[in-house]
């Protein structure tokens, strides 16, 4: 499954790939695999940028499959600061591990790194680029809570310009014919390259600067953080950020079933009083990171066992559920 067994961008995930991973994640949640399943397998964690949660969620996933993680440690003590290229670093670590997870501040880092390794490589975020495993857990959460993935009306609000989770998610949603509404200040609208992809994919997309224009129609409201550092001064940030904050009162104008999601961490774009409403699914979403990453690793390590992408795919799909 998947593009050369790597998971680099949500764009390369077909609808069938996505469904395979989500089905496997659901099967894993219902019936956790035994601890010997991938005993002795090692996952190399290459984090060139700190991200405790993503790293821990991958570590939990491989350990729950019976394997173990090799962590290259904080960046300042790694060879990157000694001037070693990323290409060399991943080549060396790929020699120790059965699969790699890469987080890197530069866009396109995962694509480049994948050209140098022959073990599966999972992109855990490359700058403002892509974060496909986040997209998979987002889709899993939607599927579990919004009654499936087809024909959803999804609102995506906040920093759409720099938010890599948004870019990955938007592209994946086009594969399920979602109607997508992008809500943001003018200055943080989708970048040109993402618009291009959405247009190419024939996505149904509308842009708004006011959430109330669409809130009442939404099955899902996906909120992202507007980052203070994007603004030249604090008052400009304040003026914009306040417009894109929701609280329990806001959600009274939404459909009763509307699911609120957020990739976390949040700052104040979702008021704490939303947490107690049935709309709030963001903690469940974060929790879903482990089963979804277990499913991905399980599929990739199975494929590696059977000697390639074409190998165990059909079998493993049917073996999952249904």
């Amino acid at each position, binding site marked *: 499954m998947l593009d050369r067994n790597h998971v680099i961008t949500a764009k390369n995930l077909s609808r069938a790939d996505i469904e395979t991973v989500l089905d496997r994640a659901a099967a894993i949640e219902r019936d956790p695999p035994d601890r010997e399943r991938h005993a002795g397998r090692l996952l190399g964690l290459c984090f060139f940028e700190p991200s405790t949660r993503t790293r821990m969620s991958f570590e939990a996933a491989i350990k729950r499959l019976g394997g173990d993680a090799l962590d290259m440690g904080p960046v300042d003590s790694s060879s990157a600061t000694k001037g070693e*290229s*990323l*290409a060399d670093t991943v080549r060396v670590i790929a020699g120790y591990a059965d699969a790699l997870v890469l987080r*890197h*501040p*530069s*866009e*396109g*880092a995962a*694509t*480049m790194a994948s*050209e140098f390794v022959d073990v599966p490589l999972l992109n855990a975020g*490359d*700058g*403002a*680029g892509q974060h496909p495993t986040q997209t998979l857990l987002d889709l899993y959460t939607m599927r579990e809570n919004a009654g499936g993935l087809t024909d959803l009306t999804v609102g995506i609000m906040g920093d759409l310009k720099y938010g890599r989770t948004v870019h990955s998610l938007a592209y994946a949603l086009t594969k399920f014919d979602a109607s997508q509404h992008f809500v943001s200040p003018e200055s943080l609208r989708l970048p*040109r*390259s993402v618009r*291009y992809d959405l247009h190419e994919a024939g996505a149904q997309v509308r842009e708004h600067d006011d959430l109330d224009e669409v809130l009442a129609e939404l099955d899902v409201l996906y909120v992202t953080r507007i980052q203070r550092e994007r603004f030249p001064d604090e008052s400009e940030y304040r003026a914009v950020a306040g417009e894109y904050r929701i609280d329990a009162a806001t959600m009274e104008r939404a459909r009763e079933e509307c699911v609120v999601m957020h990739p976390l961490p949040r700052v104040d774009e979702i008021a704490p009083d939303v947490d107690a409403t049935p709309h709030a699914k963001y903690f469940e979403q974060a929790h879903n990171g482990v089963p979804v990453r277990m499913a991905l690793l399980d599929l990739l390590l199975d494929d590696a066992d059977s000697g390639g992408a074409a190998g165990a795919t059909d079998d493993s799909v049917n073996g999952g559920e249904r």
Partner: protein
Amino acid sequence: MSERDDHELRVSKIQDGTVIDHIAGGHAPDVLAILGIDSSTDEVVSVGMNVPSDRLGHKDVVKIEGRELSQDEVDVISLIAPAASINIIREYGVAEKHRVERPDTVEGVLSCPNHDCISTEGEPVASRFAVLDDGVRCAYCETLIREDLAEHISV
């Protein structure tokens, strides 16, 4: 194309080399930039700019003495001058004539304008761009370049 174009004679015939014809008017300097020809060159180069043309209205023509272009060079010219034709001249005659064809990808000839792109950071990879109908796109960071392609040439 059997279009006869007497205007080509405005610049002198060359013995051996390349004539790049049907460059959109005003783009000859971009073509020269692609070929690395600037004021320091010692090649014999003739440039015709804004020559009347049946096909393009106005066109530019570049003639380079003693040099046959490589496929890489032709590929990049195709991005800036999609209507161009390349004539290889040997002994004052046209030995080969072909229209440029846009390749699917170009490698190592453009540099990515995104400063956060891994291809700009000293890694052991050449830049790589997918060629789209109306621009090019970095194979690493996916940045689109639609205008002013010539400014990103790194050959």
